[in-house]
């Protein structure tokens, strides 16, 4: 048990500091950097779930694992669904750019 806590602790520190250094020194291009640090966060999530919370090592029907997977999927639906929908809706909010162009210039069709 001690080994799993220690391993989880060290791995988490490495993942956190790695993400930190990547961002502070601006090593990668913007798009790639976002994906990498999100990936590092997800890896650290799984490390802590297994090492600290001992997920999946329950005897009998694994209700904890099933409830974790269903919650994670609802979480993804909530967050990604909101972002996709709100960006789709916001498509029509006049962006700063659009407003600057329209300032006082009357569009005649």
């Amino acid at each position, binding site marked *: 048990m001690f080994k799993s806590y220690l391993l989880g602790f060290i791995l988490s520190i490495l993942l956190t500091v790695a993400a930190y250094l990547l961002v*502070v020194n601006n090593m990668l291009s913007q798009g790639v950097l976002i994906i990498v640090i999100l990936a590092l966060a997800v890896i650290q999530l799984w490390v802590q779930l297994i090492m600290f919370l001992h997920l999946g090592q329950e005897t009998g029907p694994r209700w904890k694992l099933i409830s974790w997977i269903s919650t994670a999927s609802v*979480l993804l639906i909530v967050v990604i669904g909101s972002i996709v929908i709100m960006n789709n809706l916001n498509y029509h909010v006049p962006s700063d750019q659009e407003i600057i162009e329209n300032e006082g210039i009357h569009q005649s069709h």
Partner: protein
Amino acid sequence: MSHTETHERSLLGFWIYLMTDLLSFGVLFATYAVLSPNTAGGPNAKELFSLPFVLIETLILLTSSFTVGLAMLAVFKQAKQQALIWFGVTFLLGLTFLGMELYEFNNLIAEGASWERSAFLSSFFTLVGTHGLHISVGLLWMAVSMVMIWKRGLTPFINSKLTRLALFWHFLDIVWIFIFTIVYLLSYV
């Protein structure tokens, strides 16, 4: 009903409660993701956050997650003294984390960047503030548990509650990983 059965049942019940808490945080994350560009002419994330400060906060919380694990090892070995020490260390680490967070909030408000300034700041304060509230509940729970251990010793009744306390503390560190990544790191990308 045998004791292990009730322990098993309340552990699953508490786990499902943690999942519902995670979903509430999901809504706060979704609101932060949607509203963070709306700074209403006010300061944006990059101008407000100092990454080194937050890195220290994160490492402190990570260490406290480790020490609560050690405390639980002591509990399983029925080593009352050792358990009290490790819970104490976890408590202090948690308190420092909370103090640093309140310090950061205080600076922001002093600079005029309070939650009333823009939708971005509202969602920032609510997301990080709710996490801070959960930390304070965890600290209160830990304090009460330490008194219980000190007075009543490590009985099965108390051990079952300590397992749930440790579960709750690890869970808070997991939520903080994503706050650290999405709120702080992404602001510098």
